[in-house]
């Protein structure tokens, strides 16, 4: 089974990432098992899919988390897709999902995410990293989660900025 990094550990990837359908999203058949569907499929089939507890949704970098509306409270997993690692929109999406919409499930970075983004993404609320078919040594990569252990700013992982914590 393919592996990923979740909560700092290397674990089996038990979810299947469904590609964006070429056909109409309402016509696509979502297979049984743990599936992460594209936003368009979720929106087209929400009534049916929301009865299952093994459905996650992935957002492309150009899809805002607002599109998920109240489902954020119920979904077990949301994935943020990087079409290109330098597209930084998922960083803001992560913070909105966690800090504004109160998402408590697994928040996963997928696509062209790179090791050197793990620490900042963790700080924004991402807790799982699926590098897909990139050739990456996960034992090495996981070390980058803690590239920084002290920070100036408030973020999801540390809600107080340094200036409210500083002890001289």
């Amino acid at each position, binding site marked *: 089974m393919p592996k990923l990094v979740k909560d700092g550990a290397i674990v089996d990837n038990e979810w299947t990432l469904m590609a964006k359908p070429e056909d109409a999203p309402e016509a696509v058949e979502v297979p049984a098992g743990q599936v992460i569907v594209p936003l368009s499929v979720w929106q087209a089939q929400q009534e049916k899919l929301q009865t299952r507890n093994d459905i996650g949704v992935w957002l492309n970098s150009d899809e805002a988390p607002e599109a998920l509306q109240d489902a954020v409270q119920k979904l077990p997993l949301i994935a943020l897709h990087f079409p290109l690692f330098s597209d930084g929109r998922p*960083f803001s999406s992560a913070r909105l999902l966690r800090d504004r919409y109160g998402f408590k499930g697994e928040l996963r970075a997928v696509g062209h995410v790179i090791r050197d983004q793990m620490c900042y993404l963790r700080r924004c609320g991402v807790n799982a990293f699926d590098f897909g078919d990139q050739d990456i040594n996960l034992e090495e990569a996981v070390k980058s989660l803690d590239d920084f*252990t002290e920070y100036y700013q408030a973020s999801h992982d540390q809600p107080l900025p340094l200036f409210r914590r*500083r002890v001289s």
Partner: protein
Amino acid sequence: MYKYDQYDNKILQQRIAQFRNQMERFLAGELAPEEFLPLRLQNGLYIQRLAPMLRINVPYGMINSRQLRHLAYITRRFDKGYCHVTTRQNIQLHWPELSDVPDILAELAKVEMHCTQSSGNCVRNITSDQFAGVTQDEIVDPRPYCEIIRQWSHFHPEFAFLPRKFKIAITGSEQDRAAIQVHDIGLQLVRSDAGEIGFKVYVGGGLGRTPVIASLIREFLPQEQILPYLEAILRIYNQLGRRDNKFRARIKILVRALGPDVFAQKVEEEFEYMKDGSNILTEEEIERAKSFFTEPPYETLDDASAQAQVDAQAADNRAFSKWLQRNVRAHRVPGYSSVTLSLKPTGVAPGDATDRQLEIIADLADTYSFGEARTTREQNMVLADVKKTDLFELWQQLKQAGFATPNIGSLTDIVACPGGDFCSLANAKSIPIAEAIQRQFDDLDYVYDLGDLDLNISGCMNACGHHHIGHIGILGVDKKGEEFYQVQLGGSAANDARLGTVLGPSFGADEVPEVIQKIIDVYVENRTDEEQFIDTYQRLGNQPFKERVYAKAS
């Protein structure tokens, strides 16, 4: 000056370790060049035409003698013994070895310096007024706020992969010397009628290939709200800024596309969610930041007698008198002056300084200016706190070191990017053009008589030499593989910031000095007694200049 504590040091050391690992992986072929690119840029490292280039931050232009000496050492050990002061108050090394850069970062950290986010699509070094804290027209000292924003922006997890680079400038004076209206965010410190400190917030200014003067989106933002407000602007930009076209990706394009009012509305809506959060500055934090920028131990001096002494020295020495008028500036404390060191003698690339010169500046700073110096947007350096009675002695030493050219703010105080001699983006050379103009105007008395004149040269439309806001701007362009120069007139970086107007078809390099001469001739022939170049230009418009420059030889 700000002093690092255990937290600042720990964070910076973690950054260096991170980059060392990234460099090792890159050199071992484990990190792809296109993935390494934004990582190295965010540590100041470019791959240039001839060699790598490393851009070292000088936060809001403040540098002390210890840092200057260590920089001198670094330029000797890792480079060719000189460096370059940039238009964003930073310092660049143009000849380091790629694999040395982690070691250079470690050396810089010994004196609390770094290259953090000096390049890349992230929040860059915060720039400010080189006369902060000492100028008579200051409303609020901007430096504590610069430092607060520096800390907020460094390693910000959400904004490291923005659509494009992001530059913030802050001024606390009535006269804007930081060119805030041509920055992605420009902040003007103000006091409300009730005496509260806050910011006027400008957004969406910039130069480059689409020059824009910024829009005012908030008339008064209370000081404690600055971080959440900045975060709201950056979040809107990160989400909505264009990523499909590098040349349409700056925030100015987004602000224009939405309209400043709609953009401001979106920021305010985002800000609503943040304005009660933990990023609101505490009084203690503002006081802590201010505690690093308290007054140096000024002596109580008799200004009248100090001035009388200087006047007497000036009366006896014309060269000293000219230098006083061009390179020395009034200070808010009686008996003191601020001195600008010209890094623009003819024949030296504008802004270049050798290792030995850095050490001399360090020594002079220790002797005459409480051990501190500043870099300027005009690519010079400043000793901000010099006793008037020391001016004559200082001038003599500056002359020896090559810093006393009395040309600050004048035609030969040329701002220029490194240009085609160094930069792989450039269409044309900048430095030889600057030198040719300086040679054309080699009569100091004549230049002195011309008064205030900003001449800016950029080697390409990325506009690192800020040619749009020069009174005279020169832009290098490429025409079928040959270097040509377009001239524009009437730009300004001051409070009435405006962009220059292109004069007409471009010129070959050898024609440029004569073209500038003709422009100056029109000014000299038409000016009234009080007029500076920019005033005459604004009264006459482009036409008379154009007619003279493009007149057929008769």
